[in-house]
């Protein structure tokens, strides 16, 4: 297999260090971009590569950069979204901690493309080690002249700052991130206006995910055609799959975009732990619909997933075996959204808590028959009607659990306990 791009540290030890990174061709792409291409040409190449945002929404990166106003007198900012808090997702962390310079190089090229001279890396507060690694790498890069003034003698300046979050999922939502960076409560903003026109400190701003930015150097180094040749053309590139849950070999797998979900689970992650049967998979973190075993032949790319009403999301693949109680699993998911809703919008603030309480009641054996439809209705009322999509992120898994595993929810009501529970013990099943 070819050398990995994003998880290159698995092939090249110590690549987080500048000398090792340089010895393996590091910053050559940045040099190429800054010294031989115009910002517009860089943007064109990234657009042509069809690089799609790895933060979950899959928006075409080059197109997003193109939304920046051409003639704004205000400075342009780049925010690297390193808040990675999606359940089941731990890919950005690996890049930050072990392939640190590829991220900085991606930031440098992107900043050049969008004519930005100040970039912020907003990193999840819990990633203390990652923040340290970033600080070290940034110091190295300044010293080597890859950051700071007159980079590569081109007259291009760039400063990069690391900002540590304080532990809220909502700070990963791009406008919540911007508010937080401004020193405010991370209340997502209503859109329009979008960050490209009114972002950080009211200035044009691009927010990109760590993995997205880490893809950029390889596009400049190898060309957009190379990038597009990896996986499906409309949604191409190297991709990190995060596999967690009841598999033999949980972990990160860098593979081309568009791998069949079955292949990732069975061929790479070693199949279901202890030879058990697969019951359910959340393929893209916790924020999207759950899949059943007969749906796992789907290809893991943005477009293929949409065709079966699923989402690639962060490719945080959460695998659940036959012993998993789906009521408890959903309770854990909705507990997360109940905890993390910023509380701004009525449907999300009240809906997440309401869902969670109903699920707790169901788990405790006190669920009412009408609660199942009530939960479905609450989730339906939360969808598509809030400032950010956290409400949808809670509603989508809820509705899919309720419809795909309805019998199990009904059984909880009729039995007054979990049907998987044997002889009244083992209520808290592995989940």
């Amino acid at each position, binding site marked *: 297999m070819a050398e990995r791009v994003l998880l290159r540290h698995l092939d090249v030890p110590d690549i987080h260090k500048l000398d090792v990174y340089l010895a393996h061709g590091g910053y050559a792409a940045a040099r190429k971009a800054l010294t031989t291409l115009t910002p517009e040409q860089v943007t064109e190449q990234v657009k042509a590569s069809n690089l799609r945002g790895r933060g979950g929404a899959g928006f075409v990166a080059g197109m997003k950069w193109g939304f920046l106003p051409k003639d704004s007198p205000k400075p342009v900012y780049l925010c690297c979204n390193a808040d990675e808090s999606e359940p089941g997702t731990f890919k950005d962390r690996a890049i930050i901690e072990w392939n640190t310079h590829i991220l900085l190089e991606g930031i440098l090229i992107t900043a050049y493309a969008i004519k930005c001279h100040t970039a912020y890396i907003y990193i999840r507060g819990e990633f203390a080690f990652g923040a340290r690694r970033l600080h070290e790498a940034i110091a190295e890069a300044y010293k080597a002249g890859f950051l700071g003034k007159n980079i590569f003698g081109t007259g291009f300046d760039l400063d990069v700052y690391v900002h540590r979050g304080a532990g809220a999922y909502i700070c990963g939502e791009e406008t919540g991130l911007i508010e937080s960076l401004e020193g405010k409560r991370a209340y997502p903003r209503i859109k329009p206006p979008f960050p490209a026109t009114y972002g950080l400190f009211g200035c044009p701003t691009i927010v990109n995910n760590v993995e997205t930015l880490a893809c950029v150097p390889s596009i400049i180094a190898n060309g957009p055609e190379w990038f597009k040749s990896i996986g499906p053309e409309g949604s191409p590139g190297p991709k990190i799959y995060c596999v967690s849950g009841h598999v033999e070999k949980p972990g990160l797998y860098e593979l081309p975009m568009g791998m069949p979900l079955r292949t990732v689970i069975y061929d790479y992650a070693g199949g279901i732990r202890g030879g058990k049967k697969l019951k359910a998979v959340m393929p893209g973190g916790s924020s999207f619909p759950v899949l059943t075993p007969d749906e796992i032949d789907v290809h893991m790319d943005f477009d293929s997933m949409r065709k079966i009403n699923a989402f690639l999301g962060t490719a945080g693949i959460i695998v659940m075996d036959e012993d998993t109680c789906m009521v408890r699993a959903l309770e854990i998911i909705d507990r997360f959204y109940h905890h993390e809703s910023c509380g701004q919008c009525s449907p999300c603030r009240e809906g997440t808590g309401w869902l969670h309480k109903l699920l707790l009641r169901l788990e405790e054996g006190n669920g009412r028959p009408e609660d199942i439809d009530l939960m479905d209705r609450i989730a339906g*009322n939360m969808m598509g009607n809030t400032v950010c999509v956290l409400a949808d992120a809670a509603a989508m898994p809820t509705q899919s659990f309720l419809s795909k595993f309805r019998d199990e929810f009904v059984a909880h009501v009729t039995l007054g306990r979990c049907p998987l529970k044997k002889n009244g013990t083992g209520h808290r099943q592995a989940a």
Partner: protein
Amino acid sequence: MPKLTIDGREVTVEDGVNVIQAAERLGIEVPHYCYHPGLSISGNCRMCLVEIEKMPKLQIACNTKVAEGMVVYTRTPKVKAAQEAVLEFLLINHPIDCPICDQAGECKLQDYYMDYGAYKSRFPLEAKVRKRKVVDLGPHVVLDQERCILCARCTRFLDEVTKTSELGIFSRGDRCYIDLFPGKRLENPYSANVVDVCPVGALTHKDFRFKARVWYLEKTQSICTRCANGCNIDIYHRRGEMFRFRPRYNPHVNQYWMCDEGRLWYKALQQESRLTRPLLRGAQGFTAVTWDQAVNWVIEAITQAQATTTSGESAVAGIVGAKATNEEAYLCLRLLTSSCGTELVAGLSWSPPQAFADDFLIKADKNPNTRGLQALGLLNGKVAVTHILDAAEKGTIQVLVVFAADLVTALGREAVEKALGNVKVIVLDTDYSGTTEYADIVLPIGTVAETDGTYTNYAGRVQRVRQAFPPPGEAKTGWEALSLLHAKLGGASYLSAAEVFAELAQTVPVFAGLTYGKLGNHGVPLASLLPEEVRGAASA
């Protein structure tokens, strides 16, 4: 000017207007909580959903600007269902304690859920998120966190209007609550406006809490007379008693706001010290007399003074306080100059030294009508109050008419005592004051709440006040009392304040062309009516 269609009706509005405002022009109410026209758009309540052609999802009307050819529906089943859902969310943790809530009757939550059919909370009470019920925020405002729907109007007001940011939203999700930032108290001079912006009963005014059910109160358009700004207000009253002032929108004066001191000014207008009967001083002090007796006494005093005066010298003088309406001040002028033939009429506009003022609404001039008196030529320095008092002391005048002015507070007791010993003092006022102690006769008149009239604010805007209820006891409105005297002295009598104003507008050039009708709800600035040179000449 985009033209759009809302519920099948066309409307043309200015650019930049949102769909809530456009609908309002057609008399269509789009239900909303977080939107407030005086604050930034927050878009958090999600109540203002509307259907817009060519848009797949429902849109929030507050953050949707009008566009040419836009087709909006505010009442489709889809919209109704979505709004019902939002209400359901808002009520799930709401205590629904309307029977003991001050906001009942003007609560948007209550209004809408009544519209949508009383909703039975699906959660047993013990499962509701409990928060603090009586949080003391400052001198005026109390917070009930459980009733709060987190619309962020209060925080936006404090962030954007006063820029004092005392309140914040703390915690996350359904645990969110409004509270003071550590070390802060809600005590800026405009703090009580948060009570008005709060769409529910979460923020209440200490002064109004539990005092009255709003549906028993009447509402009358008026002006705050606490300072020269002339903030537009509504007086809430019942059977001649005032319960509160609330700001009334005027884009030119106070937008949606008023200051805390002005808000409580109604108390100063209905104190024990109110005068309710004409009083005549005798050997044993004041005795109540009838209006006939009082008026006759006054007329006699004036005619006597005129008869005994030596040629040329005015025997009668008048002082008009800047509390007087334009109509009252004008009638004082008419009465004294035409009927009594005196030139000795001075205005008195007194404010405590170093009175508080800021660059927002509050003015250091604590009189509502200084500019009006100026416009009538009463404060131009031709006749000074001190000059009149000197004349009184010297005995050149025999009768002094004091209208709505307290000389004692303004000039000190000593000066007043020296001057007024030798003259007949006729006082027309609302309350006992230092000056009434020197009066020979007192005629009780109505306050701003009890009369029709106009004031001219610091910027020269002429604004109407309307009678909320008649003056107490036997008191008469100021213009009626003056009209009575005027008629007795052979002048005209007037049937209404409007009639007085019409004459004023005819005779005083700066007011030319104005009528009550033209003043409308927001008043008219004097300056805009006249070119600068005419204005200059008129006030010179």
